[in-house]
């Protein structure tokens, strides 16, 4: 299976997926760490993270997948939501909590 199909499968089979640098426990980048904190602040306790530093093919592939040049990238129910700045704006306005409610939040 090629990398684009692998990514598509990952984001469609899991309700909340964050492509990031490092892991939720040990983020390797400030923006990725911020994205994890925002998801937790939204009450999402079940989300999948993909460490792009572990696989150069995914690191480039995810940028191509959504034509988005930066990491982290958040996907909810297969849809690209945005990077950490967009996540933070949506968190502040309450949109992100609404979007995530049926997807992985216990709230």
């Amino acid at each position, binding site marked *: 299976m090629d990398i684009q199909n692998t990514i598509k499968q990952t984001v469609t089979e899991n309700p909340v997926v964050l492509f990031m640098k490092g892991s939720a426990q040990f983020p390797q980048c400030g*923006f990725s760490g911020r994205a994890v904190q925002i998801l937790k602040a939204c009450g999402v306790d079940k989300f999948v993270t993909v460490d792009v530093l572990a696989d150069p093919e995914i690191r480039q592939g995810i940028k191509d997948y959504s034509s988005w040049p*930066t990491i982290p990238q958040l996907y909810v129910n297969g849809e690209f939501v945005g990077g950490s700045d*967009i996540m933070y704006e949506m968190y502040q306005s309450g949109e992100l909590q609404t979007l995530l409610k049926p997807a992985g939040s216990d709230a």
Partner: protein
Amino acid sequence: MTGPSTQWLAEALAVLEPEHLSIEDDSAAHAGHAGARSGGGHYTVTVVSARFSGLNRVARHRLVYTALGDLMKTRIHALALVALAPDEL
């Protein structure tokens, strides 16, 4: 609004005809970490442009990324971005 060291960035964003543009160079705070090794800088950019009116956040950021083109792979390692329409100030 912007210093001489980030003039190249301001020039790249001029195609968006910004009503307001601020660029902060955060590179010094990240000197030495793994991502800084490639030479790209860390920047925080706030753009206010009529081009963003009626566009969602993803579309706005894409406009900025398109304006920056290859700079995202070369001179810019990390970019914190706020993209506002004039009536959202």
